[in-house]
């Protein structure tokens, strides 16, 4: 799933005019992603589930 975020970053960076900034953001993202081993799961944050009922 992190790879999907890299794709989003790459796609967004295509819209950035500054070539150096574009390259540097993408290479930073790749560098971060390379810290994750193949098949490794990284945990961050929690998922909540709210059940609400509309008052009469």
């Amino acid at each position, binding site marked *: 799933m992190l790879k999907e975020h890299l794709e989003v*970053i790459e796609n*967004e960076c295509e819209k950035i005019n500054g070539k150096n900034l574009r390259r540097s953001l993408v290479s930073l993202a790749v560098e971060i992603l390379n810290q994750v081993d193949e098949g490794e799961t*990284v945990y961050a*944050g*929690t998922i909540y*589930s*709210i059940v609400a009922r*509309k008052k009469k």
Partner: protein
Amino acid sequence: MSVIDEIDVRGLTCLEAGTGAGFMTRYLAERGAKLVYSISNNQEHLDYARKRLPKKYIEKVKFIKADLRKLPLLNRTIDLTTAHMLVNVVNPVDLLLIFKELTRVAKNNALMVVNDYNPLSSYRDERSHIVEELFRIENATHYLTRGEPALVWYPSEYISEILKFLGWRIETVELMYDRTHGRRSCSKNISK
């Protein structure tokens, strides 16, 4: 989808706010909902969800392209609304407008289920910084190109307060996987 599992959706008119990949739409149809409105402003999402919906459910689902801030539905027509991973892609102003609209179309005594991400700081270990850094870059690129972040993490308390303000009673707030694993750490499972 553990919380939704406990709700008997048979015969209910449902609304999936934000179709996404259509997981919840399909799930509601499979579990016997009378009708599911699956609404999104993203035509690609609607097409994808429609394509992967088994044909036998197609008559029970209405895929509609619309702005969630202005739903093409009558007042008090929905029994169950789901907002599955919607909130994290909505800015604070639109968030209030969307929940106001979801309130308008909900019947009295209707249910709403909101599933989403708590802020990353709600659980972290020694490797969590990797995800945080990557998301920071993603948000930075969106700021540069669109003027707003790609992802926003609202605490569940904030969403609960909005719902209470709009006339909803909070029945439960749970962290997913709690009951399955008996611990808080199994969320936002993000693997490479």
